[in-house]
């Protein structure tokens, strides 16, 4: 089975429409930059807000483009071919979410350290913040993909998606922001990171089945 060929195809497509991929990144930067303007540029305040701001901004930025995860495949008929392929759909979906995270989630994780500096987040806690995003954003990608799979056949699916996905994202947000917040105060942050890790394992093993199920239902009619 040539897994790499499927990943390569998705990456090539992503590269050809790289303009679209920049949008969530710019959104993330702008949203984080808005907080000092709206609240106050006071370093101590920003420092205490930083973990929450970064995490909420990453969560919202991740939602942009999430509804297009399977949309073009649905519209051009590629999704039918995926369903008819002898390769298990769950496996292909897992690869798709991985490549999607690679081109949308990973840039956010990398950029988050820069934005955290802007918010006066302590540099010695940066490792924990990046780690929390590294564990948490893939979970968000999986949750978004479940919603995208369910709504792919709907005309206004893009509107419905955040409403479906955001409530499910709450645990990730809580533990992610908690890890980064504790680290900023110099407290041990291992426990929330472990929770994030556990959620990632759960998402990795269960979400592909939910996504594939959603896609099958969407295509049945």
């Amino acid at each position, binding site marked *: 089975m040539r897994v790499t*060929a*499927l990943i390569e*195809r998705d990456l090539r497509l992503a590269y050809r429409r790289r303009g679209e991929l920049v949008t969530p990144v710019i959104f993330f930067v702008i949203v984080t930059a808005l907080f000092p303007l709206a609240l106050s540029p006071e370093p101590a305040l920003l420092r205490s807000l930083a973990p929450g701001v970064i995490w909420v901004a990453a969560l919202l930025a991740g939602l942009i483009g999430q509804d297009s995860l399977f949309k073009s495949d649905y519209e*051009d008929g*590629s999704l039918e*071919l995926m369903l008819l392929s002898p390769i298990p759909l769950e496996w292909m979906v897992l690869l798709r979410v991985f490549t999607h995270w690679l081109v949308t989630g990973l840039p956010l994780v990398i950029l988050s350290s820069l934005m955290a500096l802007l918010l006066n987040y302590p540099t010695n806690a940066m490792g924990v913040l990046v780690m929390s995003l590294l564990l948490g954003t893939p979970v968000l990608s999986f949750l978004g993909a479940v919603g995208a799979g369910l709504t792919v056949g709907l005309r206004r699916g893009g509107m419905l998606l955040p409403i479906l996905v955001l409530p499910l994202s709450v645990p990730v947000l809580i533990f992610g922001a908690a890890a980064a917040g504790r680290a900023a105060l110099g407290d041990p942050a291992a426990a929330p990171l472990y929770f994030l890790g556990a959620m990632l394992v759960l998402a990795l093993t269960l979400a592909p089945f939910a996504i594939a199920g959603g896609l099958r239902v969407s295509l049945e009619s």
Partner: protein
Amino acid sequence: MYEPATSQALSVHNLAIWRGERCLCRDLSFQLSAGEALQVQGQNGAGKTTLIRVLTGLGRADEGEVRWRGESLRRTGAEYRACLAYLGHSNGVKLGLSPRENLAAFCALLALPDSGGVDDVKGVLERVGLSAQADLPCGMLSMGQRRRTALARLLLARARLWFLDEPLASLDVSGVALLTEMLKAHLAGGGIAVFATHQLLDLGPFPVKAVALGLAA
């Protein structure tokens, strides 16, 4: 019930498909064995696409069942999917990729063995007359050329069963001739083809069965 010894056959038993309140077909039964073709007839909206999707396993029938080599589709799964090639309304062609890249990705989707892939793609592109456009993004090609890319997919798949939904859409005269040739070669090789077209295709010596939809309602 005893299954007749047509191990290669696709058979449909008492199929009923409902679309909401409307009955598309009821008590539909037929059997296709190697080298046979079936034309699904019916006016627009009669349910040709729905029937073909049920036969591929993409859609679900309300009653009855489809069997491949005597096994119900519900049990065959990936084994059945490895035997079939489907050409739907939409081409399944990525507009951002060239025909060559599209077909290479399709090889991966079929889980074809590594060997030969590239040469196969080249030969197939030549066959459908897209050698000159092989490296242009499909978004720049005409509708007919995109359709030809989709036809190239059928040749790559080497599937025993072909399901073609309006295969002639956007094809020019030579495209229709190409498809007819492809179908003949497919049937001569012991393949089975199910297609929905409004035009009659002249498949020469090969028998074409017909199913008409839209009469049940």
